[in-house]
């Protein structure tokens, strides 16, 4: 296999590059590296099947770009790993190798079915992933391979139009910046706000080398101090895992409760099997919040968002809407009494936009507008939340300040006093010198 070693390394590099960036160049390079291997392995069916799967996935990813199904991007290195094992592992017998390749092909077929399901619509037959041709190893037989359907084209158009419109807007914003006249604030950028305004002064910052700012340093030291907050990556992972475990426990709990009642286990919902994303449950949860926000509702909201998010990773606006709903929900979990009405309205508004963008094929401008409005609304909402939090902290400093915060404030005050004292001493010292001379 020594002759193949180098070429397979090229292939490996080409696949790794996709991890970083999906560009035409990277994808074409993948196709290029496959060709010589096909010739070299002529007649070796298992190897050819792997190559074919890699090639087909590559073409699909090139076409779909960042909208490609995440599993397609994950499958690519998987299939390569199989190929590498089959080539390099001399101790493995042929039967085992074929099993390995078959497993890879099965994964590919599963993905293909998923994609077909995801896109299954009346009159819609196009297959984003072409079928692998029949070969010695049982390769999948492709379902329909028609051309683009109307919906296909519409979706494509919409995406392109949105992208195009965004780019225009961005360009305008960016070039506004150079114009001397006051440019309108970009709607797409959230901002804590409150500082800019008639009283605000803009300061253009220039780097100052070799200077120190002890007050700033001590504030930073205080804020970023490690007291009790130490956090390592192992803990971070552990936290994630516990979190996941918690969710599972809840699910199990619910199933068990149901078991007791109905004596019949409810099978867990298989999300992947769903053809269409359904936001009915989300609608109910948000609707119910109007009558009162409870911990249970918030938990349901978080869970629903988490599961919906996985189903629709490739739709920018939908992701944005879900992110915002998720963020507002998390805010309510931690501060259930701050900006409640505003948050409720925000949830409803963004939900409406989400539902709208999922179920209607509105003219493209609407989606773009609600996308931008959502970002803008989020900024406003955020501003309000921060203001209310600050107001509350100011009104009831004793009760609001945690011991930790109190300690921090004390430290800052102490430092400022120290600083003053130092300055005072310096003045006295200077006066002394002046007097003496």
């Amino acid at each position, binding site marked *: 296999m020594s002759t193949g070693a180098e070429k397979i390394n090229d292939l490996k590099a080409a696949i790794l590059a996709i991890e970083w960036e999906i560009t035409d160049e990277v994808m074409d390079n993948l196709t290029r590296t496959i060709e010589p291997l096909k010739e070299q392995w002529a007649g070796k069916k298992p190897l050819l099947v792997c190559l074919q799967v890699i090639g087909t996935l590559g073409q699909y990813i090139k076409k779909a770009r960042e909208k490609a199904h995440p599993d397609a*991007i994950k499958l690519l290195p998987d299939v390569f790993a199989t190929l590498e094992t089959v080539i390099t592992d001399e101790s493995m017998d042929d039967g085992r190798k074929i099993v390995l390749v078959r497993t890879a092909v099965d994964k590919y077929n599963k993905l293909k079915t998923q994609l077909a399901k995801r896109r299954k619509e009346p009159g819609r037959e196009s297959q984003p992933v072409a079928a692998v041709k029949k070969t010695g190893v049982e390769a999948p037989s492709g379902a329909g391979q028609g051309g683009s359907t109307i919906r296909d084209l519409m979706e494509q158009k919409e995406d392109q139009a949105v992208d195009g419109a965004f780019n225009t807007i961005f360009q305008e914003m960016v070039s506004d910046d150079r114009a001397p006249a006051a440019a309108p604030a970009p709607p797409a950028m959230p901002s804590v706000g*409150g*500082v800019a305004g008639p009283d605000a*002064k803009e300061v253009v910052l220039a780097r100052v080398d070799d200077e120190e700012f002890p007050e700033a340093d001590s*504030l*930073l030291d205080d804020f970023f101090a490690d007291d009790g907050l130490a956090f390592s990556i192992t803990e971070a992972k552990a936290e994630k895992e516990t979190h996941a475990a918690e969710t599972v426990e809840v699910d199990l709990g619910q199933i068990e409760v149901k078991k007791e009642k109905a004596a019949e286990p409810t099978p867990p919902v298989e999300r992947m099997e769903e053809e269409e994303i359904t936001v009915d449950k989300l609608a109910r949860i948000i609707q119910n919040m109007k009558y009162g926000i409870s911990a249970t509702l918030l938990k349901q909201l978080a869970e629903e968002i988490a599961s919906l998010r996985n189903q629709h990773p490739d739709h920018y606006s939908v992701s944005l809407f879900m992110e915002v709903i998720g963020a507002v929900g998390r805010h309510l979990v931690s501060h259930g009494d701050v900006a409640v009405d505003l948050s409720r309205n925000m949830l409803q508004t963004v939900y409406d936009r989400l539902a709208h963008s999922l179920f209607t094929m509105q003219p493209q401008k609407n989606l773009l507008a609600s996308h931008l409005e959502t970002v803008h609304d989020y900024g406003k909402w955020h501003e309000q939340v921060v203001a209310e939090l600050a107001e509350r902290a100011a009104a009831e400093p004793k009760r609001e300040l945690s011991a930790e915060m109190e300690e921090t404030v004390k430290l800052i005050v102490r430092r400022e006093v120290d600083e003053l004292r130092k300055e005072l001493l310096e003045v006295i010292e200077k006066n002394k010198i002046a007097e003496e001379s």
Partner: protein
Amino acid sequence: MGFINVKKKEVQIKIVYYGPGRGGKTTNLDYINKKYKQRIKTEMVSIKTHGDRTLFFDFLPVDIGKIHGFDIKIQLYTVPGQVKYNATRKLVLKGVDGIVFVADLQKERRDSNLKSLEQMKENLLSHNKDAFKIPLVLQYNKIDLQNQGIPLLTVEEMEQDLNQELRVPYFVGSALAGDNVVETLKKIISMTLISFRKELQ
């Protein structure tokens, strides 16, 4: 341009994490957000596509406290690193006060680091800003990969490639493990505040 509101006694500072795709910008912010959750009190927003790529930007507002009676409000942003999103990157850079350039130590990313830094300089120019003047810190990220036998660039090579002319502070770190993440942020805030100092007094 930072904003200073004398009446409200507030200072608003915008820090942007910039760098090549998959270099670890979002991971930096994630770490800060997790570690200081209780102090930050507000929500981090990030808009990602699958595979955790930043689509528009991540946004994390942090109020660090007062200096000379001024509330210091820091806004942390990341840009999307993928080449095709330069319009977004330009937009995010608008009004930036300080930059952390997150470079990837992996040998294979050498070219991407260089290209990204060059483009950053150009993008800054389009906002009438100068990479040689704005507060800037470099972070050489993913040093933890050296234990996994992945070919990395040396610090000297990184310095040669990226910092020979700029001559700004740099940190070798691991956003994933949290090594030098906080130090990087402290440094850039501190540099930015130093440039602000005259206004604060």
